[in-house]
Every structure is written in structure tokens, then in C-alpha cells.
């Protein structure tokens, strides 16, 4: 059974989805989803354990056809690190979905909703586990299509979810098509689709213009998918009008998986030796990353809707990941992985906590949370801790991210960039403070509806908050994992 874990990781949620579609009761649909996400979480932990224990990469030949003939699943230190994020967040958010979905989604839609929910998760897992470039596209579409529908479900409360979902669909499809174009060029040059085989055969052929363009198109497509500035404009409406549970799931995982796929293709296939990677992509990522960091942070500061605020902040945080990748050193990539991991935890916690408010008031804005600190202390404290982690206060995971990112920058002599990165991340203080001020320092306005919370409502957010603090205090395992993950792309191949 252990030998089948890589495929089970994906097909458990994938095949559970049609079964859940057939369920009728809403309670049972949730329960089944919850159990399935729990199982996938356990599988990912087992995989992580297996990989980190043996240090080897697990290869699973699908259909019994070895690469490059068939499609293979590959679990190495990098994918083993990303899988638990996706499944862990999926598990916790599903726990929260019980009350969030009940509050926001028509109950007759629950079975279908959770089907799409599992499909999104399965699609993301498929992208992470696969070792085949075209298979990435297929699973990308599984996760995207279901995500469009999930975002559109926000229309029950705000009709703007529909155009948001439509634009998301258009840009997502354009991104995927760019990816397919780039992949086509790559395929034409090498005759293979297997990632490892691609890397080997690309190293053999000279660095042609076609290869650069293949890289450019793949990178562009994935920039769109990961919402890198300036291709981020779909993200804010999509996250802010989506139902709270969906926003939490997507904000914490969707863009991260695209970041991972970008790393996997750029470093794993083209490799650091490829001129277009080290000189072209690196500069682009650093530039766009730092601009995105400032643009996102400043936009978040003036935003009054909490979902939009944290969606803007996601743009900034993605900027930091882009910077980490753009440094083009093992340390930089490790920093990007650390931040990818930590940001998933923080944003998951934040969106879940906002969801508690949103489920009661429709929207969580600066006005609706005025004086909320006394009425829903646990929820607001979760937001506070999430915010502190975003700023990068020591003893939260955000600090570790920041520390390693700045270190990677300084080690590569990017002094100015390190300063700018630092300042932009410190600016997060401004929007976190705005929330603190509204929630604790202002009285509850006259006539504002009373907010309430139950342990079931704040527990999921707190699980992630505890994880954020836990990884901020006991950071060594995460750092080691990220360093090993980065080593996959620098030591292992070429």
C-alpha cells in the first residue's frame, strides 16, 4: 500500500468527488468531504515522512509504463513539502466549511459544491505530484474549472461574483493556453513531455531562440496563474466575491501551487544553467516581485473591505516569493519555499477568520469590525496573529520567511533590494494596525448587529494560527525541508 501512496494522494479526492456528487443530504456531503480531506492529509504526511526519511525520490509509473513513454508521478523533497500544505489547508478549511458553507450556500447545492471543492483540491495535488508536463495542464484545468464555479457561488450574496468568475475564467484559460503553447515548442524541440527527460534532452540541444520562447510562454502562463504583478488583476475580485470558505482555500493554496509549478518547470526542466533562466527570468522576477510587493501593500493599506485587503496583501506576498525565486540561488529558492509554506498558513487563518464575520454580516469591512474585538475575541485575535505574521514579527512563521528572504538577498549582494523588501513588508504594519484600531480601539457603533462566535467557528482559524506560531518557534524542520526542496533543483540534476 505504501508503494501506491503517490497515486492515492490524488485519486482519493479525485474519485471521491463523483461519489459525493451522488449524495443528497448536505450534512453527509460535508462529512464525507471532511473525511476525504483528512485522508489526503494523512497520505501527504506519510509521503513527506517517506521522502525525508529515505532522502530518495519516489517514482510511480502510471499504467505501468515507465517514463518517458507513460506518465509518472514523482515525489521528491520539493513536492513532498508542498503536498502537506495543500492537503493540510484543505483539511482545516473543510472543517470550517461546515458553518461557512451552511451560511453562504443554498443547501440544495451542497453536494455539488463539495464535489467541486474536492476536484479543486485534487487538481492542485495532481499538479504537484506529476512528473509530466502535459499532465500538469490537465490537472491545472481540473482545479481551475472547479475554482471558477466555486468563485461564482459567491453570487448568492453579491452578483459581482459572476463577472469576477468570468474574468478569472478568461484569464485562467489564457494562462493555461500560453502554458500549452510553450509546452508545444518545448515538445517540438525535444520530443518528450516527461519533466526529467525534458531536462536531459534540453541540456543536449543548444540554447535556441525557440527554447527561450518556450520558457517565456510557460513562465508567462504561470505568472498569470500565480497572479504575479502586473498579471494579478483577476485575483482581487475573484477572492473577494467568492464565498468565504472558497476564498480561504484558494488564497491559501491556489497561487502557491502555481508558484511551485513555475519552480518545477523553470529550475527542474530548463535548469539554472539555461541563460534565459539565470539572466532573463531572474531579473524579471526580482523587478516584478518588488513592484508587486509595494503595489499590493499600498493597495491593501487604503482598502476597507477585509477580503479585498488581504487579497491585495496576497499580491505583495507573491511578490516576495517571486523575489526569492528570482535570486536564483539555493538560499533564495529555499526562502521562497519557506514563505510559500508560511503564507499559506497565515492567509488561510486570516480568510477563515474573516469568513466568521462575513458569514454573519455579508461582508467584513472596517466598519463591520468596529468594536468587534470584545464581541468575537477569538476570531479577532486570530486576525491579529495572522496580521503579525504577515508583518514578520518574531515568534511567528512570517519572521522566519522574512529572515531567510533577506538573508538570501544580502548573500547575493542585493543590498538595496533587501532594504526595499524589508520596508515593504514592514508597511504591512499599517493595514494590520488599521484592523486592530477598528476592532479594539473603537466602540461598537450604535445599532450595529451583534456578532457572535462559537468554538466550531474560530477553531479552524486557530488551528492555522497555532501552526503559524508553531512553525515560527520550532522552525528547524520547515527550514530543513525547504533547503532540501531547493536542493532538488540545484544539486540533484544537471
Amino acid at each position, binding site marked *: 500500500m505504501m508503494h501506491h501512496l503517490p497515486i492515492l494522494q490524488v485519486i482519493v479526492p479525485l474519485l471521491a468527488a*463523483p461519489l459525493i456528487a*451522488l449524495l443528497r443530504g448536505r450534512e453527509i456531503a460535508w462529512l464525507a468531504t471532511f473525511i476525504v480531506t483528512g485522508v489526503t492529509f494523512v497520505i501527504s504526511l506519510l509521503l513527506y515522512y517517506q521522502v525525508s526519511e529515505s532522502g530518495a525520490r519516489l517514482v510511480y509509473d502510471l*499504467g505501468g509504463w515507465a517514463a518517458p513513454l507513460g506518465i509518472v508521478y514523482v515525489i521528491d523533497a520539493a513536492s513532498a513539502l508542498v503536498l502537506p500544505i495543500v492537503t493540510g489547508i484543505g483539511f482545516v478549511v473543510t472543517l470550517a466549511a461546515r458553518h461557512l458553507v451552511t451560511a453562504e450556500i443554498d443547501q440544495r447545492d451542497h453536494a455539488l459544491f463539495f464535489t467541486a471543492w474536492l476536484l479543486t483540491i485534487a487538481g492542485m495535488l495532481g499538479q504537484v505530484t506529476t512528473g509530466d508536463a502535459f499532465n500538469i495542464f490537465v490537472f491545472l484545468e481540473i482545479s481551475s474549472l472547479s475554482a471558477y464555479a466555486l468563485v461564482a457561488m459567491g453570487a448568492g450574496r453579491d452578483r459581482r461574483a459572476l463577472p469576477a468568475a468570468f474574468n478569472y475564467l478568461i484569464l485562467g484559460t489564457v494562462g493555461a493556453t500560453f502554458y500549452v503553447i510553450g509546452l508545444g515548442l518545448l515538445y517540438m524541440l525535444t520530443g518528450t513531455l516527461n519533466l526529467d527527460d525534458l531536462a536531459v534532452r534540453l541540456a543536449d540541444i543548444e540554447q535556441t531562440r525557440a527554447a527561450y520562447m518556450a520558457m517565456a510562454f510557460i513562465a508567462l502562463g504561470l505568472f498569470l496563474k500565480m497572479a504575479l504583478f502586473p498579471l494579478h488583476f483577476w485575483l482581487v475580485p475573484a477572492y473577494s466575491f467568492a464565498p468565504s470558505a472558497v476564498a480561504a482555500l484558494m488564497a491559501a493554496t491556489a497561487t502557491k501551487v502555481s508558484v511551485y509549478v513555475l519552480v518545477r518547470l523553470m529550475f527542474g526542466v530548463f535548469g539554472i544553467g539555461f541563460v534565459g533562466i539565470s539572466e532573463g527570468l531572474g531579473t524579471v522576477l526580482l523587478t516584478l516581485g518588488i513592484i508587486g510587493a509595494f503595489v499590493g501593500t499600498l493597495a491593501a493599506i487604503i482598502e476597507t473591505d477585509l477580503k479585498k485587503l488581504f487579497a491585495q496583501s496576497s499580491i505583495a506576498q507573491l511578490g516576495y516569493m517571486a523575489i526569492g525565486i528570482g535570486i536564483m540561488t539555493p538560499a533564495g529558492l529555499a526562502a521562497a519555499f519557506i514563505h510559500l509554506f508560511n503564507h499559506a498558513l497565515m492567509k488561510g487563518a486570516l480568510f477563515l477568520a474573516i469568513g466568521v464575520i462575513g458569514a454573519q454580516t455579508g461582508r467584513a469591512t472596517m466598519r463591520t469590525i468596529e468594536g468587534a474585538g470584545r464581541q468575537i475575541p477569538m476570531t479577532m485575535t486570530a486576525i491579529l496573529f495572522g496580521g503579525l505574521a504577515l508583518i514578520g514579527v518574531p515568534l511567528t512563521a512570517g519572521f522566519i520567511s522574512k529572515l531567510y528572504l533577506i538573508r538570501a538577498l544580502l548573500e547575493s549582494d542585493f543590498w538595496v533590494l533587501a532594504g526595499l523588501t524589508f520596508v515593504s513588508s514592514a508597511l504591512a504594519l499599517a493595514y494590520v494596525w488599521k484592523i486592530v484600531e477598528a476592532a479594539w480601539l473603537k466602540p461598537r457603533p450604535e445599532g450595529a448587529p451583534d456578532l457572535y462566535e462559537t468554538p466550531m467557528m474560530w477553531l479552524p482559524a486557530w488551528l492555522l494560527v497555532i501552526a503559524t506560531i508553531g512553525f515560527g518557534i520550532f522552525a528547524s524542520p520547515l527550514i530543513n525541508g525547504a533547503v532540501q526542496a531547493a536542493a532538488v533543483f540545484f544539486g540533484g540534476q544537471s
Partner: protein
Amino acid sequence: MQDDPVIRVIAKVLIPTMMLFALYVQFHGDYGPGGGFQAGVIFAAAFILNATVFGLNRGRHVWPARLNLLGVALGVLIFGGTGVATMVLGENFLSYNALSDDPIAGQHLGILLVEFGVGLTVAAVMVALFFAFAGRVSHVRLLNKTRAHEKTLAEKAKGAAND
């Protein structure tokens, strides 16, 4: 359209033919062009034709909603189930060789099964999509008609009150 006898007769002939053709495409995919996907689309086309000619309600009667969702899910499950079966038989996911002692026979059986899964899903999905869209259309039309009717009624009532 539903009242045109010519169309009705043509449809009565055409629909079974299409279904037969779909089956041919489904099972002849090994030797010539075609396979589950194309067969599923053709099969669905037959149903769609049936529904357009004989009306949505009758179409729904032939292929009820519940069955539709079942078909959609079942196709995926057959495909995935084939993979799970090969796993249970000790091989990797989707290694059809495990399905029979003879690898070639195993491959044949496997391909047959998964193509059937694909066909079933595609046919059911296409029908579902059609009913979803067409259902929406007829519903919205109906709704508009009722609204217009209510409006005229209201105006009449208003007129009467004014008198």
C-alpha cells in the same frame, strides 16, 4: 418545430441510427478513428435531437435528471475503478496488464472499460449541459411571459381602479 410531421418522422428514423453509429464509434475505436469521447458526443446528440424535436419535458422523461447525474459520476468511477482494480490486483494504477493473464488481452479489456467510462461520462455530461442550458432558456422565457402577463393584469387593475 415539435408539430412538424416531417421532422418528427425524420427524427424517429435518425435517432436510432445515431445511437447505433455511436455504439459503432465506441467499440470500433481500437481499429479506426473514434473512441469513447466521440461516441459519447454522438450518443448525446441523439438525445438532444430527441429533446429538441419532441420537447424538453419528454426528453427529460426519457433521461431523468437523477439518472443523468448518476451517469456523469458513474463514467468517472468506471474509469477510476479500472485503475483501482489493477491496483488491487497488485499492479500500478491503470496497468491493464493485471486484468488478465495475457498482457494483450488485459490491455484490450482495460481500454474497453475506460473507453466505456469516457463514453458514459461524456454522453451524460453533454446531455446534462444541454438540459441545463435549454432548461434555463425555457424557464427564463416562461418567467418573462408570466411577468409580462402580471404586468398587464396589474395595468388592467389599475385602469379599472381609475375608472
